[in-house]
């Protein structure tokens, strides 16, 4: 038994020796085995179990102490060797570190973006349990909002949510020391802070009793609001702020950094203070809903329950709920929007650029390894095993990669500093993007992987040198294994293929952006200024019946109509103003607001088949100010006021969609914005289509109403966009317009001041953002590829100097030599381009979702990419080719 234990112990010990470096095992392994065997003999003679335990304990402790130290010593030697080798060739080192810095830095920057926007959880407790509830309507589209009626039924019938709330972002006028300021605030139901999962740093949140009509004059403020507006005073709870003319008691202050949703900039939360029965018709879907799933409940389970509840509501309320379901969307997805595919595409693109960098460096290292064959052979003769040589060469690559990674972090920081300007406010959660610890860890890991990726193959190949030949011959040329040339050629083909993919993606985005910029928005933006004013409603609407609400609202509207008429008359009379008008939602601001309508003498559409159009409340000067053409009939006039017959102007899209075989002029429609008998309006004009929803969205049916005749569409938080067309530069008119507003209402803030041409340019902001970034990466990929092609072509020319000399000596025209070299280089490029083309076509499905107006397999883009690649790589081939043509045959032959 003792003998079997000894042999088992020896076998185990032999295996344990593998933790030591190879060289240590080679020098002392057999001795150590012998010593251990003798120790086993001693333990066997002693015959005590404790003796064996002591032996193994000491042996393992000794191995754990000594093996890491030996590895560290090897690493120190390898790194010292690597530093000396790199210092001896500073030119190569600089080029390599620069290439790596560009590749790794770009990756770090984009990963920062991906991490901050897509990967980092939202700053709320258990954010994956937070969902938005949309009112879903299948192919007819969904609404991000619901009605209070539906929300209360959902809340009463569902069992899958821990808490539910409604939440309506709004804007209001904060009055303080007679200086009005527009702020972003939110109406939120009592459970809102429970759903979000965060409480105030000071004070409390509103109670359920305060979320009732008449009791809701309380507010919770943000930390920033407390500091800026309330002086950061310690006794802030109980102070009063005035919002839209209403005093609100501050009951709580949220912690620093709290915002909902992230990036919204909300400064104040007040109770909704509204019951379902006070909020209008069940079909009026106007307020977003939010919920927190119960622990352990999956979204699938919750969705199934909500679908069943929605079905029951449709059966109970067919007029308003037929065809309407409820769709749950994770809050993070809502916040991120449609930036995910674009960010992932950018990340993939920089990944490809880094692979091109790796291929380039692998080529450079192979060439450098060739030049160092003698040195490597000498080391092998002096006792360095093959894997030691591989490790030493790999250490150089890792050192280069780490240096490139550190430099790359600097580049990443620079790129991140430029991001906000590039993004133009269109990328969500950008304030969370930075060089976080996760990004630093990613950069370090990427540097290590990159070093192995571009260093391993050259290290393995170069360590396989023919020692005797390498030591005998001093000149490496002509002695390089043919396999090296094949490997280098394969790397160039791979580079070109990857470069083609990145260039095609950038080319498609560039064409898409060009098409988008050329889209006719339907209006003339040049020289037009946009400013917003939002006079608060001058009546109390809490707790009133719908008919009484409409009556009070129309009376107040008449007062406000006078305000807007006077204001626009004063503005139009200003020097330098060519035209002035107003609209509730200006072009490119989004599809909201719209409504169903019916046409007189047509059957009322059944539920689920209603006719819908955008609705815009305008002043008569709106069309002229924005240059919207009149197609038929007439425009709205000042005479179309509250007492005159109701009229409406529609756009061409509405005419095409709902009067495809008839003339809409003279027809009467009723915009079903309030309950009660229809308020028919006659279609008196057709105007050109305007893109309200965005440049990429086909113009939607839209109808226009004068302010006095419109029964809705003007809310105290929206206000109206004043549009002023200047005879020259519009910017100097800003101060003058502000004065005119102040002259009529000194406490009314003017905000949202922008030039309409900036609004138009900003509409393509997200597309411009990703096109600029991807274009930059594609340019980098092209330069790197051209450098790679140049390198391998120059290398081939150097190898074939003797052959060139013979050819010239035998009378070959020098032009033929150029053709030979260029032909070989371009053959590689052609092969790589073909592979790249196939890859790009394979990715076309993904790219299609990111481009506008152009197919992902657009042939012109592929042709343009081919031409650009051809030009760059041809230039890279011609330089060494011309050198080949200048070879002196006598010198070339003498050298051999």
């Amino acid at each position, binding site marked *: 038994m003792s003998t079997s234990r000894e042999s088992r112990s020896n076998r185990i*010990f032999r295996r344990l020796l593998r933790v*030591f470096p190879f060289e*240590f095992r080679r*020098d*002392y392994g*057999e*001795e*150590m*085995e*012998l*010593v*251990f065997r*003798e*120790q086993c003999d001693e333990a066997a003679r002693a015959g005590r179990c404790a003796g064996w335990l*002591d032996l193994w304990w*000491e*042996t393992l*402790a*000794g*191995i754990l*102490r*000594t*093996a890491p*130290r*030996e590895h560290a010593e090897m690493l120190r030697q390898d790194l010292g060797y690597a530093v000396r080798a790199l210092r001896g060739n500073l030119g190569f080192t600089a080029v390599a570190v620069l290439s790596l810095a560009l590749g790794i830095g770009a990756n770090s920057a984009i990963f920062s973006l991906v991490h901050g926007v897509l990967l980092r959880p939202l700053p709320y407790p258990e954010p994956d349990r937070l969902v938005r509830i949309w009112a879903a309507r299948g192919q007819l589209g969904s609404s991000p909002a619901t009605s209070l009626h539906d929300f209360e039924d959902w809340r009463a019938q569902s069992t899958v949510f821990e808490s539910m709330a409604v939440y309506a972002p709004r804007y209001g006028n904060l009055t303080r020391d007679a200086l009005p300021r527009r702020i972003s605030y939110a109406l939120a139901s009592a459970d809102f802070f429970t759903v979000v999962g965060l409480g105030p740093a000071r004070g409390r949140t509103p109670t359920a009793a305060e979320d009732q009509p008449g009791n809701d004059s309380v507010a919770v403020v943000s930390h920033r609001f407390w500091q800026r507006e309330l002086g950061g005073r310690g006794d802030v709870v109980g102070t009063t702020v005035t919002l839209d003319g209403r005093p609100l008691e501050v009951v709580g202050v949220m912690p620093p950094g709290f915002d909902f949703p992230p990036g919204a900039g909300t400064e104040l939360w007040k109770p909704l203070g509204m019951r379902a029965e006070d909020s209008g018709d069940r079909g009026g879907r106007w307020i977003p809903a939010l919920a927190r799933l119960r622990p352990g409940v999956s979204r699938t389970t919750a969705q199934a329950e909500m679908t069943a509840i929605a079905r029951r509501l449709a059966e109970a309320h067919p007029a308003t709920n037929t065809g309407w379901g409820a769709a749950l969307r994770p809050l993070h997805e809502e916040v991120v929007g449609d930036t995910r595919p674009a960010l992932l595409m950018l990340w993939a693109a920089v990944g490809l650029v880094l692979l091109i960098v790796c291929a380039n460096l692998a080529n450079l290292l192979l060439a450098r390894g060739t030049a160092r064959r003698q040195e490597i052979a000498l080391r092998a003769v002096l006792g360095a095993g093959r894997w030691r040589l591989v490790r030493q060469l790999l250490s150089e690559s890792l050192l280069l990669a780490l240096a490139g990674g550190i430099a790359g972090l600097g580049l990443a920081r620079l790129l991140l500093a430029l991001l906000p300007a590039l993004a133009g406010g269109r990328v969500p959660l950008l304030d969370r993007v930075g060089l976080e610890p996760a990004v630093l860890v990613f950069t370090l890991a990427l540097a290590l992987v990159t070093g192995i990726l571009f260093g391993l193959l050259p290290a393995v190949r170069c360590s396989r040198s023919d020692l005797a030949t390498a030591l005998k011959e001093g000149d490496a040329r002509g002695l390089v294994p043919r396999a090296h040339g094949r490997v280098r050629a394969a790397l160039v083909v791979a580079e070109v293929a990857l470069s083609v993919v990145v260039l095609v993606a950038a080319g498609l985005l560039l064409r898409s952006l060009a098409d988008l910029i050329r889209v006719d928005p339907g209006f003339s933006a040049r020289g037009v200024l946009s400013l917003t004013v939002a006079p608060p409603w001058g009546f109390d609407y809490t707790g009133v019946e719908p008919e009484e609400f409409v009556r009070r609202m129309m009376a107040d509207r008449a007062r406000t109509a006078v305000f807007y008429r006077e204001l626009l008359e004063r503005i139009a009379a200003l020097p330098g103003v060519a035209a002035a008008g107003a609209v509730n939602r200006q072009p490119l601001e989004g599809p909201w607001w719209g409504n169903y309508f019916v046409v007189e003498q047509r059957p009322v559409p059944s539920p689920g088949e209603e006719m819908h159009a955008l609705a815009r409340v305008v002043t008569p000067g709106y069309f002229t100010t924005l240059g919207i053409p009149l197609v038929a009939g007439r425009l709205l006039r000042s005479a179309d006021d509250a007492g005159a017959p109701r009229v409406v102007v529609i756009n061409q899209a509405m005419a095409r969609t709902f009067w495809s075989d008839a003339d809409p002029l003279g027809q009467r429609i009723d915009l079903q914005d309030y309950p009660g008998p229809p308020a028919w309006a006659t279609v008196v004009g057709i105007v050109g289509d305007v893109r309200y929803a965005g440049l990429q969205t086909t113009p939607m049916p839209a109808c226009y109403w004068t302010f006095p005749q419109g029964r809705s569409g003007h809310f105290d938080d929206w206000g109206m966009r004043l549009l002023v067309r200047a005879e020259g530069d519009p910017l100097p008119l800003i101060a003058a317009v502000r004065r005119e507003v102040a002259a009529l209402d000194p406490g009314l803030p003017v905000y949202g001041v922008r030039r309409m041409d900036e609004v138009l340019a900003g509409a393509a902001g997200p597309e411009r953002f990703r096109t600029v970034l991807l274009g930059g990466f594609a340019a980098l990929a092209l330069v790197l590829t051209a450098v790679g092609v140049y390198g391998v072509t120059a290398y081939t020319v150097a190898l074939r100097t003797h052959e060139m000399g013979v050819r010239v000596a035998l009378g070959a025209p020098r032009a033929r030599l150029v053709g030979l070299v260029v032909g070989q280089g371009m053959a590689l490029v052609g092969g790589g381009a073909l592979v790249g083309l196939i890859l790009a076509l394979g990715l076309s499905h993904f790219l299609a979702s990111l481009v506008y107006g152009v197919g992902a397999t657009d042939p012109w883009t592929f042709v343009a990419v081919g031409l650009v690649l051809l030009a760059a790589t041809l230039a890279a081939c011609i330089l060494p080719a011309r050198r080949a043509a200048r070879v002196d045959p006598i010198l070339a032959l003498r050298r051999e």
Partner: protein
Amino acid sequence: MSERTSPPKSPQSYLPLTPPLFHVLMALADGDKHGYAIMKDVKQRTDGEVRLSAGTLYGIIKRLVASGMIRELDPPPGMTRDDARRRRSYHLEPLGREVARAEAERLERMLSIARAKNLFIRPEPA
């Protein structure tokens, strides 16, 4: 085979020595030994207090050879190369002897200080 890789330094520059390393030098002070013999010598002299495992011993031997304090001996005539590798003996070089002496003197000085501080006098029980 390991060989000396670092230039010679003064004996003082190697101090203080770790106890295992000091014991290995002392084991070789009275004659050449192979690895197992060094291990046994240290264990016996210290009554089992200092016990060197194979890993610890050969880590020390490698460092001592590289610094020139000990030297691997050529195998005796007639021994096969494999046996010679397994039964390699080590010889204490003059540098190693100087370093061991310097360490011993350092320890002696510390002992003198401890005696001067009456560290070895136990107080009388109250």
